Protein backbone atom coordinates (compact mmCIF):
# COMPACT_ATOMS: atom_id res chain seq x y z
CA UNK A 1 0.00 0.00 0.00
CA UNK A 2 2.83 2.35 0.85
CA UNK A 3 4.53 1.46 -2.44
CA UNK A 4 1.29 2.31 -4.17
CA UNK A 5 1.17 5.77 -2.57
CA UNK A 6 4.78 6.45 -3.49
CA UNK A 7 3.95 5.57 -7.08
CA UNK A 8 0.89 7.83 -7.18
CA UNK A 9 2.92 10.66 -5.67
CA UNK A 10 5.45 10.25 -8.44
CA UNK A 11 2.70 10.40 -11.08
CA UNK A 12 1.42 13.66 -9.65
CA UNK A 13 4.97 15.02 -9.74
CA UNK A 14 5.09 14.22 -13.48
CA UNK A 15 1.82 16.05 -14.07
CA UNK A 16 2.57 19.11 -11.99
CA UNK A 17 6.04 19.56 -13.45
CA UNK A 18 4.97 19.59 -17.03
CA UNK A 19 3.47 22.96 -17.99
CA UNK A 20 2.01 21.47 -21.18
CA UNK A 21 0.09 18.80 -19.27
CA UNK A 22 -1.11 21.34 -16.74
CA UNK A 23 -2.24 23.71 -19.44
CA UNK A 24 -4.16 20.94 -21.12
CA UNK A 25 -5.68 19.77 -17.85
CA UNK A 26 -6.92 23.08 -16.59
CA UNK A 27 -6.60 25.54 -19.47
CA UNK A 28 -8.48 23.48 -22.01
CA UNK A 29 -11.75 23.13 -20.06
CA UNK A 30 -11.87 26.88 -19.41
CA UNK A 31 -11.17 27.71 -23.04
CA UNK A 32 -13.76 25.21 -24.24
CA UNK A 33 -16.46 26.35 -21.86
CA UNK A 34 -15.90 29.95 -22.84
CA UNK A 35 -15.69 29.13 -26.52
CA UNK A 36 -18.74 26.93 -26.65
CA UNK A 37 -20.61 29.06 -24.18
CA UNK A 38 -20.12 32.40 -25.87
CA UNK A 39 -18.30 32.39 -29.14
CA UNK A 40 -19.58 29.24 -30.79
CA UNK A 41 -23.16 29.74 -29.78
CA UNK A 42 -25.66 28.60 -32.39
CA UNK A 43 -28.32 30.94 -31.12
CA UNK A 44 -29.35 33.71 -33.51
CA UNK A 45 -29.09 37.17 -32.04
CA UNK A 46 -28.78 40.66 -33.50
CA UNK A 47 -28.46 39.52 -37.09
CA UNK A 48 -28.14 42.38 -39.56
CA UNK A 49 -31.13 42.77 -41.82
CA UNK A 50 -32.40 45.47 -44.13
CA UNK A 51 -36.00 46.61 -44.26
CA UNK A 52 -37.04 48.36 -47.45
CA UNK A 53 -40.39 50.01 -46.94
CA UNK A 54 -41.81 51.13 -50.27
CA UNK A 55 -45.31 51.29 -48.80
CA UNK A 56 -44.64 53.79 -46.03
CA UNK A 57 -48.14 53.36 -44.67
CA UNK A 58 -49.56 52.69 -41.26
CA UNK A 59 -49.58 48.92 -41.49
CA UNK A 60 -46.03 48.61 -42.80
CA UNK A 61 -44.72 50.99 -40.10
CA UNK A 62 -46.47 49.03 -37.37
CA UNK A 63 -45.02 45.77 -38.58
CA UNK A 64 -41.53 47.26 -38.90
CA UNK A 65 -41.68 48.50 -35.32
CA UNK A 66 -42.49 44.95 -34.26
CA UNK A 67 -39.51 43.67 -36.20
CA UNK A 68 -37.26 46.27 -34.65
CA UNK A 69 -38.49 45.40 -31.18
CA UNK A 70 -37.28 41.82 -31.55
CA UNK A 71 -33.72 41.27 -30.41
CA UNK A 72 -33.14 38.65 -33.07
CA UNK A 73 -32.53 41.36 -35.63
CA UNK A 74 -30.50 44.48 -35.99
CA UNK A 75 -32.64 46.38 -38.41
CA UNK A 76 -31.56 48.99 -40.88
CA UNK A 77 -34.23 50.88 -42.79
CA UNK A 78 -33.19 51.83 -46.26
CA UNK A 79 -34.53 51.89 -49.76
CA UNK A 80 -31.80 50.10 -51.56
CA UNK A 81 -32.03 49.17 -55.20
CA UNK A 82 -32.02 45.50 -56.15
CA UNK A 83 -28.34 45.71 -57.15
CA UNK A 84 -27.38 47.44 -53.91
CA UNK A 85 -29.19 44.78 -51.93
CA UNK A 86 -27.44 42.06 -53.83
CA UNK A 87 -24.08 43.68 -53.14
CA UNK A 88 -24.81 43.85 -49.43
CA UNK A 89 -25.69 40.16 -49.47
CA UNK A 90 -22.53 39.33 -51.39
CA UNK A 91 -20.32 41.21 -49.01
CA UNK A 92 -22.01 39.51 -46.10
CA UNK A 93 -23.15 42.81 -44.61
CA UNK A 94 -26.72 41.62 -44.25
CA UNK A 95 -28.30 38.20 -43.92
CA UNK A 96 -31.90 39.03 -44.72
CA UNK A 97 -33.91 41.68 -46.47
CA UNK A 98 -37.58 42.44 -45.84
CA UNK A 99 -39.36 44.33 -48.59
CA UNK A 100 -42.76 45.94 -48.29
CA UNK A 101 -44.19 46.71 -51.74
CA UNK A 102 -46.09 49.90 -52.54
CA UNK A 103 -49.71 49.71 -51.38
CA UNK A 104 -49.10 47.20 -48.61
CA UNK A 105 -51.87 48.50 -46.31
CA UNK A 106 -54.20 49.09 -49.18
CA UNK A 107 -53.88 45.50 -50.34
CA UNK A 108 -54.23 44.25 -46.81
CA UNK A 109 -57.36 46.16 -46.01
CA UNK A 110 -59.13 45.98 -49.35
CA UNK A 111 -58.27 42.71 -50.99
CA UNK A 112 -57.55 41.07 -47.62
CA UNK A 113 -54.20 39.84 -48.85
CA UNK A 114 -50.88 41.66 -48.72
CA UNK A 115 -47.46 40.48 -49.63
CA UNK A 116 -44.13 41.04 -47.96
CA UNK A 117 -40.96 39.69 -49.50
CA UNK A 118 -38.36 37.93 -47.39
CA UNK A 119 -34.94 37.40 -48.97
CA UNK A 120 -32.43 35.42 -46.96
CA UNK A 121 -28.79 34.51 -47.47
CA UNK A 122 -29.02 30.73 -47.63
CA UNK A 123 -25.27 30.24 -48.03
CA UNK A 124 -25.62 29.42 -44.36
CA UNK A 125 -28.77 27.30 -44.53
CA UNK A 126 -29.26 26.97 -40.79
CA UNK A 127 -29.11 30.70 -40.24
CA UNK A 128 -31.42 31.39 -43.19
CA UNK A 129 -34.11 28.99 -41.98
CA UNK A 130 -33.90 30.33 -38.47
CA UNK A 131 -34.19 33.93 -39.63
CA UNK A 132 -37.14 33.18 -41.90
CA UNK A 133 -38.98 31.33 -39.17
CA UNK A 134 -38.38 34.15 -36.67
CA UNK A 135 -39.67 36.66 -39.21
CA UNK A 136 -42.65 34.45 -39.96
CA UNK A 137 -43.57 34.37 -36.33
CA UNK A 138 -43.33 38.17 -36.06
CA UNK A 139 -45.66 38.53 -39.05
CA UNK A 140 -48.04 35.92 -37.68
CA UNK A 141 -48.22 37.67 -34.34
CA UNK A 142 -49.05 40.96 -36.01
CA UNK A 143 -51.72 39.23 -38.04
CA UNK A 144 -53.27 37.70 -34.93
CA UNK A 145 -53.41 41.09 -33.28
CA UNK A 146 -55.19 42.54 -36.30
CA UNK A 147 -57.76 39.77 -36.32
CA UNK A 148 -58.32 39.46 -32.63
CA UNK A 149 -61.97 40.55 -32.79
CA UNK A 150 -62.80 38.33 -35.69
CA UNK A 151 -63.86 34.79 -35.02
CA UNK A 152 -62.52 32.42 -37.60
CA UNK A 153 -64.64 29.35 -38.23
CA UNK A 154 -61.87 26.79 -37.92
CA UNK A 155 -58.71 27.46 -36.01
CA UNK A 156 -55.91 25.12 -34.99
CA UNK A 157 -53.69 26.70 -32.43
CA UNK A 158 -50.45 24.82 -31.76
CA UNK A 159 -49.59 25.19 -28.08
CA UNK A 160 -45.82 25.19 -28.05
CA UNK A 161 -43.83 24.35 -24.99
CA UNK A 162 -40.03 24.14 -25.15
CA UNK A 163 -39.12 21.63 -22.46
CA UNK A 164 -36.00 21.76 -20.25
CA UNK A 165 -34.55 24.75 -22.04
CA UNK A 166 -37.38 27.19 -22.74
CA UNK A 167 -35.13 30.03 -23.83
CA UNK A 168 -33.51 27.74 -26.41
CA UNK A 169 -30.06 28.55 -25.20
CA UNK A 170 -26.99 26.78 -26.56
CA UNK A 171 -25.13 26.37 -23.26
CA UNK A 172 -27.29 23.59 -21.76
CA UNK A 173 -26.47 21.57 -24.85
CA UNK A 174 -22.78 22.36 -24.92
CA UNK A 175 -21.85 21.85 -21.29
CA UNK A 176 -22.51 18.07 -21.32
CA UNK A 177 -20.73 17.94 -24.67
CA UNK A 178 -17.68 19.75 -23.36
CA UNK A 179 -17.64 17.45 -20.33
CA UNK A 180 -17.54 14.34 -22.49
CA UNK A 181 -14.90 15.85 -24.74
CA UNK A 182 -12.61 16.95 -21.91
CA UNK A 183 -12.86 13.69 -20.00
CA UNK A 184 -12.19 11.75 -23.17
CA UNK A 185 -9.12 13.85 -23.91
CA UNK A 186 -7.65 13.79 -20.43
CA UNK A 187 -8.32 10.20 -19.60
CA UNK A 188 -7.61 8.50 -22.89
CA UNK A 189 -4.78 10.61 -24.20
CA UNK A 190 -2.98 11.43 -20.98
CA UNK A 191 -3.12 7.93 -19.50
CA UNK A 192 -1.99 6.26 -22.69
CA UNK A 193 0.83 8.75 -23.14
CA UNK A 194 1.99 8.44 -19.56
CA UNK A 195 2.12 4.65 -19.73
CA UNK A 196 3.78 4.60 -23.14
CA UNK A 197 6.32 7.16 -21.92
CA UNK A 198 7.53 4.64 -19.34
CA UNK A 199 7.92 2.08 -22.10
CA UNK A 200 9.76 4.51 -24.33
CA UNK A 201 12.07 5.67 -21.55
CA UNK A 202 12.85 2.09 -20.53
CA UNK A 203 11.58 2.65 -17.01
CA UNK A 204 8.71 0.22 -17.60
CA UNK A 205 11.15 -2.69 -17.68
CA UNK A 206 12.63 -1.62 -14.37
CA UNK A 207 9.14 -1.48 -12.89
CA UNK A 208 8.27 -4.93 -14.27
CA UNK A 209 11.46 -6.41 -12.83
CA UNK A 210 10.65 -4.94 -9.42
CA UNK A 211 8.34 -6.75 -6.98
CA UNK A 212 5.71 -4.11 -7.71
CA UNK A 213 2.84 -5.90 -9.48
CA UNK A 214 2.23 -4.97 -13.15
CA UNK A 215 -1.48 -4.50 -12.51
CA UNK A 216 -0.58 -2.03 -9.75
CA UNK A 217 1.66 -0.13 -12.17
CA UNK A 218 -1.36 0.39 -14.40
CA UNK A 219 -3.63 1.25 -11.48
CA UNK A 220 -1.25 3.81 -10.07
CA UNK A 221 -1.00 5.35 -13.52
CA UNK A 222 -4.78 5.60 -13.77
CA UNK A 223 -5.67 6.85 -10.31
CA UNK A 224 -4.02 10.29 -10.56
CA UNK A 225 -5.94 10.93 -13.76
CA UNK A 226 -9.15 9.77 -12.11
CA UNK A 227 -8.59 12.33 -9.36
CA UNK A 228 -7.61 15.07 -11.80
CA UNK A 229 -10.67 14.32 -13.94
CA UNK A 230 -12.99 14.63 -10.98
CA UNK A 231 -11.37 17.98 -10.16
CA UNK A 232 -11.98 18.91 -13.76
CA UNK A 233 -15.67 18.01 -13.65
CA UNK A 234 -16.08 20.14 -10.55
CA UNK A 235 -14.39 23.00 -12.36
CA UNK A 236 -16.56 22.62 -15.47
CA UNK A 237 -19.74 22.43 -13.40
CA UNK A 238 -18.79 25.54 -11.41
CA UNK A 239 -17.94 27.40 -14.59
CA UNK A 240 -21.15 26.40 -16.26
CA UNK A 241 -23.20 27.30 -13.19
CA UNK A 242 -21.65 30.67 -12.46
CA UNK A 243 -20.51 31.81 -15.89
CA UNK A 244 -22.94 30.20 -18.31
CA UNK A 245 -25.84 30.10 -15.91
CA UNK A 246 -26.62 26.45 -16.60
CA UNK A 247 -28.32 24.89 -13.58
CA UNK A 248 -27.90 21.30 -12.48
CA UNK A 249 -31.45 20.03 -12.32
CA UNK A 250 -30.85 16.41 -11.33
CA UNK A 251 -29.02 14.72 -8.51
CA UNK A 252 -25.39 15.76 -8.12
CA UNK A 253 -24.52 12.39 -6.62
CA UNK A 254 -25.90 10.63 -9.68
CA UNK A 255 -24.06 13.07 -11.95
CA UNK A 256 -20.75 12.32 -10.25
CA UNK A 257 -21.40 8.60 -10.10
CA UNK A 258 -22.04 8.48 -13.83
CA UNK A 259 -19.03 10.70 -14.51
CA UNK A 260 -16.76 8.41 -12.53
CA UNK A 261 -18.07 5.46 -14.53
CA UNK A 262 -17.29 7.30 -17.75
CA UNK A 263 -13.84 8.30 -16.49
CA UNK A 264 -13.12 4.64 -15.80
CA UNK A 265 -14.35 3.73 -19.29
CA UNK A 266 -12.01 6.32 -20.79
CA UNK A 267 -9.11 5.32 -18.56
CA UNK A 268 -9.42 1.69 -19.57
CA UNK A 269 -9.52 2.76 -23.20
CA UNK A 270 -6.33 4.75 -22.56
CA UNK A 271 -4.71 1.69 -21.00
CA UNK A 272 -5.80 -0.41 -23.97
CA UNK A 273 -4.19 2.06 -26.39
CA UNK A 274 -1.01 2.06 -24.34
CA UNK A 275 -0.73 -1.73 -24.54
CA UNK A 276 -0.90 -1.56 -28.33
CA UNK A 277 1.52 1.29 -28.99
CA UNK A 278 5.24 1.70 -28.46
CA UNK A 279 5.78 5.44 -28.80
CA UNK A 280 4.24 8.50 -27.21
CA UNK A 281 3.74 9.96 -30.64
CA UNK A 282 1.60 7.11 -31.91
CA UNK A 283 -0.32 6.97 -28.64
CA UNK A 284 -1.15 10.63 -29.09
CA UNK A 285 -2.10 10.21 -32.74
CA UNK A 286 -4.40 7.29 -31.99
CA UNK A 287 -5.99 9.12 -29.08
CA UNK A 288 -6.49 12.29 -31.08
CA UNK A 289 -7.67 10.82 -34.36
CA UNK A 290 -9.40 7.83 -32.86
CA UNK A 291 -11.03 9.59 -29.93
CA UNK A 292 -11.27 13.33 -30.37
CA UNK A 293 -12.77 13.32 -33.84
CA UNK A 294 -15.41 10.63 -33.24
CA UNK A 295 -16.25 12.27 -29.94
CA UNK A 296 -16.81 15.61 -31.64
CA UNK A 297 -18.76 14.08 -34.51
CA UNK A 298 -20.77 11.35 -32.87
CA UNK A 299 -21.55 12.62 -29.42
CA UNK A 300 -24.41 14.60 -30.80
CA UNK A 301 -23.72 17.99 -29.31
CA UNK A 302 -22.36 19.56 -32.46
CA UNK A 303 -24.15 17.65 -35.18
CA UNK A 304 -27.50 16.03 -34.54
CA UNK A 305 -27.13 12.29 -34.93
CA UNK A 306 -30.75 11.98 -36.07
CA UNK A 307 -29.78 13.73 -39.33
CA UNK A 308 -26.95 11.35 -40.15
CA UNK A 309 -27.19 8.49 -42.65
CA UNK A 310 -27.86 5.07 -41.11
CA UNK A 311 -24.26 3.72 -41.17
CA UNK A 312 -23.05 6.77 -39.22
CA UNK A 313 -25.96 6.51 -36.81
CA UNK A 314 -24.93 2.92 -36.09
CA UNK A 315 -21.29 3.97 -35.74
CA UNK A 316 -22.21 6.61 -33.19
CA UNK A 317 -23.32 3.83 -30.84
CA UNK A 318 -19.78 2.57 -30.34
CA UNK A 319 -18.50 5.97 -29.22
CA UNK A 320 -18.50 5.89 -25.40
CA UNK A 321 -18.87 9.66 -25.15
CA UNK A 322 -22.19 9.40 -27.01
CA UNK A 323 -23.74 7.51 -24.09
CA UNK A 324 -22.16 9.71 -21.47
CA UNK A 325 -23.50 12.78 -23.23
CA UNK A 326 -27.03 11.32 -23.19
CA UNK A 327 -26.68 10.51 -19.50
CA UNK A 328 -25.37 13.93 -18.50
CA UNK A 329 -28.00 15.72 -20.53
CA UNK A 330 -30.71 13.67 -18.91
CA UNK A 331 -29.45 14.22 -15.37
CA UNK A 332 -28.14 17.75 -15.60
CA UNK A 333 -30.52 19.47 -17.99
CA UNK A 334 -33.69 17.38 -17.75
CA UNK A 335 -33.31 16.51 -14.09
CA UNK A 336 -34.12 12.83 -14.63
CA UNK A 337 -33.24 10.03 -12.24
CA UNK A 338 -31.41 6.73 -12.65
CA UNK A 339 -34.50 4.96 -14.00
CA UNK A 340 -34.23 7.07 -17.14
CA UNK A 341 -30.60 6.28 -17.85
CA UNK A 342 -30.02 2.73 -16.60
CA UNK A 343 -29.71 1.45 -20.16
CA UNK A 344 -27.01 3.96 -21.12
CA UNK A 345 -25.23 3.26 -17.86
CA UNK A 346 -25.27 -0.45 -18.57
CA UNK A 347 -23.80 0.13 -22.03
CA UNK A 348 -20.95 2.23 -20.60
CA UNK A 349 -20.35 -0.41 -17.98
CA UNK A 350 -20.18 -3.11 -20.64
CA UNK A 351 -17.74 -1.05 -22.71
CA UNK A 352 -15.51 -0.59 -19.66
CA UNK A 353 -15.41 -4.32 -19.00
CA UNK A 354 -14.59 -4.95 -22.65
CA UNK A 355 -11.70 -2.46 -22.71
CA UNK A 356 -10.34 -3.78 -19.43
CA UNK A 357 -10.48 -7.39 -20.59
CA UNK A 358 -8.77 -6.47 -23.87
CA UNK A 359 -5.96 -4.55 -22.16
CA UNK A 360 -5.41 -7.30 -19.64
CA UNK A 361 -5.13 -9.80 -22.48
CA UNK A 362 -2.64 -7.60 -24.38
CA UNK A 363 -0.66 -7.03 -21.25
CA UNK A 364 -0.30 -10.77 -20.69
CA UNK A 365 0.68 -11.46 -24.31
CA UNK A 366 3.40 -8.85 -24.05
CA UNK A 367 4.87 -10.44 -20.93
CA UNK A 368 4.89 -13.99 -22.31
Amino acid sequence: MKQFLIFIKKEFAHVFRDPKTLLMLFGLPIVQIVLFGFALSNEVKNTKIVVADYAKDHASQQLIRKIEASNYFETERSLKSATELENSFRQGKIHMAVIFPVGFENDLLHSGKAQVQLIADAADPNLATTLISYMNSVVREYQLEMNKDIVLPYVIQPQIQMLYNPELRGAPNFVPGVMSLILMLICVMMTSISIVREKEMGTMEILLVSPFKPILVILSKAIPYLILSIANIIMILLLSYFVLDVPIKGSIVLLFGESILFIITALSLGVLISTRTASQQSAMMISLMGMLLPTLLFTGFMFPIENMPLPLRILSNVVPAHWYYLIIKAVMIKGLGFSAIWRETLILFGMTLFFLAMSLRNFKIRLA
Partner: protein
Amino acid sequence: METVIQTKQLTKKFGDFTAVNEITFEVFAGEIFGFLGANGAGKTTAMKILCGLLKPTSGQATVAGFDIYKQPEQIKRSIGYMSQKFSLYEDLTVYENIRFYAGIYGLRSKQIKEKSEELLERLNLQDYKKKLVAELPLGWKQKLSFSVAIIHQPRIVFLDEPTGGVDPVTRRQFWDLIYEASSKGMTIFVTTHYMDEAEYCNRVSMMVDGAIEALDTPSELKRIYKANSMDEVFQELARKAVRTAD
Protein backbone atom coordinates in the same frame (compact mmCIF):
# COMPACT_ATOMS: atom_id res chain seq x y z
CA MET B 1 31.38 -22.14 -4.57
CA GLU B 2 27.73 -21.27 -4.24
CA THR B 3 25.74 -21.13 -7.46
CA VAL B 4 23.32 -18.18 -7.80
CA ILE B 5 22.21 -18.60 -11.40
CA GLN B 6 21.84 -21.93 -13.11
CA THR B 7 20.30 -22.65 -16.51
CA LYS B 8 19.73 -25.94 -18.33
CA GLN B 9 18.96 -25.97 -22.04
CA LEU B 10 17.19 -22.66 -21.68
CA THR B 11 15.49 -21.83 -24.99
CA LYS B 12 13.41 -18.95 -26.28
CA LYS B 13 11.70 -19.01 -29.66
CA PHE B 14 9.82 -16.18 -31.31
CA GLY B 15 7.82 -18.01 -33.95
CA ASP B 16 10.38 -19.80 -36.15
CA PHE B 17 13.24 -17.72 -34.83
CA THR B 18 15.28 -19.24 -32.02
CA ALA B 19 16.65 -16.27 -30.11
CA VAL B 20 18.19 -18.32 -27.34
CA ASN B 21 19.20 -21.88 -28.17
CA GLU B 22 19.59 -24.36 -25.30
CA ILE B 23 22.00 -22.38 -23.20
CA THR B 24 23.40 -24.05 -20.08
CA PHE B 25 25.63 -22.22 -17.64
CA GLU B 26 26.23 -21.37 -14.00
CA VAL B 27 27.07 -18.12 -12.26
CA PHE B 28 28.70 -18.21 -8.82
CA ALA B 29 28.01 -15.98 -5.88
CA GLY B 30 30.03 -12.78 -5.79
CA GLU B 31 31.52 -13.02 -9.26
CA ILE B 32 31.39 -10.54 -12.10
CA PHE B 33 29.98 -12.53 -14.96
CA GLY B 34 30.37 -11.04 -18.43
CA PHE B 35 27.66 -12.03 -20.87
CA LEU B 36 29.09 -11.17 -24.27
CA GLY B 37 28.00 -11.45 -27.86
CA ALA B 38 27.40 -9.46 -31.01
CA ASN B 39 24.21 -7.46 -31.39
CA GLY B 40 21.36 -9.85 -32.02
CA ALA B 41 23.19 -12.83 -30.50
CA GLY B 42 20.45 -13.24 -27.90
CA LYS B 43 22.10 -11.69 -24.82
CA THR B 44 19.25 -9.35 -23.94
CA THR B 45 16.63 -12.06 -24.49
CA ALA B 46 18.46 -14.46 -22.18
CA MET B 47 18.83 -11.74 -19.57
CA LYS B 48 15.16 -10.83 -19.78
CA ILE B 49 14.21 -14.45 -19.15
CA LEU B 50 16.37 -14.54 -16.04
CA CYS B 51 14.81 -11.28 -14.81
CA GLY B 52 11.28 -12.55 -15.35
CA LEU B 53 10.47 -10.15 -18.20
CA LEU B 54 10.07 -12.99 -20.68
CA LYS B 55 8.88 -16.58 -20.36
CA PRO B 56 11.24 -19.21 -21.83
CA THR B 57 9.95 -21.65 -24.45
CA SER B 58 11.71 -24.58 -22.83
CA GLY B 59 14.54 -25.47 -20.46
CA GLN B 60 15.10 -24.74 -16.80
CA ALA B 61 16.67 -21.99 -14.79
CA THR B 62 17.02 -20.90 -11.20
CA VAL B 63 17.97 -17.43 -10.06
CA ALA B 64 19.10 -16.89 -6.46
CA GLY B 65 17.91 -20.43 -5.84
CA PHE B 66 14.37 -19.75 -7.05
CA ASP B 67 12.73 -21.41 -10.03
CA ILE B 68 11.92 -18.97 -12.85
CA TYR B 69 8.59 -20.69 -13.60
CA LYS B 70 7.31 -21.19 -10.08
CA GLN B 71 8.88 -18.45 -7.97
CA PRO B 72 9.10 -15.28 -10.07
CA GLU B 73 8.06 -13.10 -7.12
CA GLN B 74 10.91 -14.34 -4.92
CA ILE B 75 13.34 -13.80 -7.81
CA LYS B 76 12.14 -10.20 -8.21
CA ARG B 77 12.95 -9.50 -4.58
CA SER B 78 16.47 -10.89 -4.95
CA ILE B 79 17.59 -9.08 -8.08
CA GLY B 80 18.32 -5.61 -9.34
CA TYR B 81 18.15 -4.60 -13.00
CA MET B 82 19.55 -1.80 -15.08
CA SER B 83 18.51 -1.68 -18.72
CA GLN B 84 20.44 -0.33 -21.70
CA LYS B 85 18.09 2.56 -21.83
CA PHE B 86 18.80 5.11 -19.20
CA SER B 87 16.23 4.37 -16.53
CA LEU B 88 15.74 7.33 -14.20
CA TYR B 89 12.93 9.88 -14.45
CA GLU B 90 14.34 13.08 -15.92
CA ASP B 91 11.58 15.27 -14.55
CA LEU B 92 12.10 14.09 -10.98
CA THR B 93 14.94 15.23 -8.74
CA VAL B 94 17.86 12.99 -7.83
CA TYR B 95 16.40 12.41 -4.38
CA GLU B 96 12.88 11.76 -5.69
CA ASN B 97 14.24 9.10 -8.04
CA ILE B 98 16.08 7.38 -5.22
CA ARG B 99 13.03 7.56 -2.97
CA PHE B 100 10.73 6.22 -5.67
CA TYR B 101 12.82 3.19 -6.58
CA ALA B 102 13.67 2.42 -2.97
CA GLY B 103 9.96 2.81 -2.22
CA ILE B 104 8.69 0.35 -4.80
CA TYR B 105 11.17 -2.20 -3.45
CA GLY B 106 9.42 -1.80 -0.13
CA LEU B 107 12.17 -0.07 1.85
CA ARG B 108 10.97 1.76 4.96
CA SER B 109 11.08 5.54 5.12
CA LYS B 110 13.94 5.48 7.63
CA GLN B 111 15.94 3.07 5.48
CA ILE B 112 15.26 5.17 2.41
CA LYS B 113 16.67 8.24 4.17
CA GLU B 114 19.79 6.46 5.34
CA LYS B 115 20.40 4.71 2.06
CA SER B 116 19.97 7.78 -0.06
CA GLU B 117 22.32 9.87 2.10
CA GLU B 118 24.90 7.14 1.87
CA LEU B 119 24.42 6.83 -1.88
CA LEU B 120 24.63 10.57 -2.51
CA GLU B 121 27.80 10.75 -0.48
CA ARG B 122 29.41 7.85 -2.32
CA LEU B 123 28.63 9.43 -5.69
CA ASN B 124 29.51 12.91 -4.50
CA LEU B 125 26.06 14.11 -5.48
CA GLN B 126 24.97 15.81 -2.22
CA ASP B 127 24.77 19.18 -3.94
CA TYR B 128 22.57 17.71 -6.65
CA LYS B 129 20.06 16.09 -4.32
CA LYS B 130 17.30 18.53 -5.25
CA LYS B 131 18.30 19.00 -8.88
CA LEU B 132 16.33 17.40 -11.69
CA VAL B 133 18.00 14.34 -13.15
CA ALA B 134 17.74 15.96 -16.59
CA GLU B 135 20.42 18.43 -15.47
CA LEU B 136 23.03 15.74 -14.76
CA PRO B 137 25.67 14.70 -17.32
CA LEU B 138 25.07 11.26 -18.87
CA GLY B 139 27.93 9.58 -17.01
CA TRP B 140 26.55 10.70 -13.67
CA LYS B 141 23.09 9.57 -14.58
CA GLN B 142 24.45 6.12 -15.33
CA LYS B 143 26.29 5.91 -12.04
CA LEU B 144 23.19 7.07 -10.24
CA SER B 145 21.12 4.57 -12.20
CA PHE B 146 23.36 1.73 -11.09
CA SER B 147 23.34 2.83 -7.46
CA VAL B 148 19.55 3.03 -7.55
CA ALA B 149 19.34 -0.46 -9.12
CA ILE B 150 21.18 -1.92 -6.11
CA ILE B 151 19.64 0.26 -3.40
CA HIS B 152 17.66 -2.68 -2.01
CA GLN B 153 20.87 -4.74 -1.78
CA PRO B 154 19.89 -7.53 -4.16
CA ARG B 155 21.91 -10.74 -4.28
CA ILE B 156 22.31 -10.42 -8.04
CA VAL B 157 22.27 -7.37 -10.26
CA PHE B 158 21.67 -7.62 -14.01
CA LEU B 159 23.25 -4.89 -16.10
CA ASP B 160 22.24 -4.70 -19.74
CA GLU B 161 24.95 -2.77 -21.62
CA PRO B 162 25.23 -0.26 -18.81
CA THR B 163 28.01 1.81 -20.34
CA GLY B 164 26.61 2.40 -23.82
CA GLY B 165 27.50 5.83 -25.16
CA VAL B 166 29.74 6.92 -22.28
CA ASP B 167 33.34 8.12 -22.55
CA PRO B 168 36.16 5.77 -21.45
CA VAL B 169 36.95 7.70 -18.26
CA THR B 170 33.37 7.51 -17.03
CA ARG B 171 33.24 3.86 -18.02
CA ARG B 172 36.26 3.21 -15.84
CA GLN B 173 34.54 5.01 -12.94
CA PHE B 174 31.42 2.98 -13.55
CA TRP B 175 33.44 -0.22 -13.30
CA ASP B 176 34.86 0.99 -9.99
CA LEU B 177 31.30 1.03 -8.69
CA ILE B 178 30.75 -2.48 -10.02
CA TYR B 179 33.91 -3.71 -8.26
CA GLU B 180 32.80 -2.07 -5.06
CA ALA B 181 29.42 -3.83 -5.18
CA SER B 182 31.10 -7.12 -6.06
CA SER B 183 33.53 -6.81 -3.16
CA LYS B 184 30.53 -6.69 -0.85
CA GLY B 185 29.41 -10.06 -2.15
CA MET B 186 26.90 -8.99 -4.79
CA THR B 187 26.85 -11.06 -7.98
CA ILE B 188 27.12 -8.98 -11.15
CA PHE B 189 25.69 -10.26 -14.42
CA VAL B 190 26.66 -7.83 -17.13
CA THR B 191 26.23 -7.72 -20.90
CA THR B 192 28.46 -5.50 -22.95
CA HIS B 193 29.92 -5.28 -26.38
CA TYR B 194 32.98 -3.33 -25.27
CA MET B 195 35.66 -6.01 -25.28
CA ASP B 196 37.98 -4.05 -22.99
CA GLU B 197 35.26 -4.33 -20.37
CA ALA B 198 35.27 -8.10 -20.80
CA GLU B 199 38.78 -8.08 -19.35
CA TYR B 200 37.37 -6.69 -16.09
CA CYS B 201 35.08 -9.69 -15.59
CA ASN B 202 35.90 -12.76 -13.51
CA ARG B 203 34.39 -15.05 -16.10
CA VAL B 204 33.02 -14.41 -19.54
CA SER B 205 30.58 -16.23 -21.79
CA MET B 206 30.53 -15.62 -25.52
CA MET B 207 27.21 -15.95 -27.27
CA VAL B 208 27.00 -16.57 -31.00
CA ASP B 209 23.67 -17.02 -32.78
CA GLY B 210 21.74 -17.75 -29.60
CA ALA B 211 24.15 -20.34 -28.24
CA ILE B 212 27.05 -20.07 -25.79
CA GLU B 213 30.23 -20.80 -27.77
CA ALA B 214 32.77 -20.24 -25.01
CA LEU B 215 32.76 -19.73 -21.25
CA ASP B 216 35.83 -19.19 -19.10
CA THR B 217 38.03 -16.61 -17.43
CA PRO B 218 39.38 -13.95 -19.80
CA SER B 219 42.97 -15.22 -19.46
CA GLU B 220 41.94 -18.80 -20.12
CA LEU B 221 39.91 -17.76 -23.20
CA LYS B 222 42.88 -15.81 -24.57
CA ARG B 223 45.08 -18.85 -24.04
CA ILE B 224 42.64 -21.25 -25.78
CA TYR B 225 42.13 -18.99 -28.77
CA LYS B 226 45.79 -17.88 -28.84
CA ALA B 227 44.69 -14.29 -28.73
CA ASN B 228 46.28 -11.18 -27.22
CA SER B 229 43.03 -9.50 -26.22
CA MET B 230 39.39 -10.35 -25.63
CA ASP B 231 38.66 -8.46 -28.82
CA GLU B 232 40.61 -11.04 -30.83
CA VAL B 233 38.79 -13.85 -29.03
CA PHE B 234 35.53 -12.22 -29.92
CA GLN B 235 36.50 -11.72 -33.57
CA GLU B 236 37.52 -15.36 -33.79
CA LEU B 237 34.18 -16.55 -32.42
CA ALA B 238 31.96 -14.00 -34.12
CA ARG B 239 33.28 -15.13 -37.50
CA LYS B 240 31.12 -18.26 -37.14
CA ALA B 241 27.97 -16.17 -36.85
CA VAL B 242 25.37 -16.65 -39.55
CA ARG B 243 22.81 -14.22 -38.15
CA THR B 244 23.12 -10.54 -38.75
CA ALA B 245 22.29 -8.02 -36.12
CA ASP B 246 18.59 -7.45 -35.62
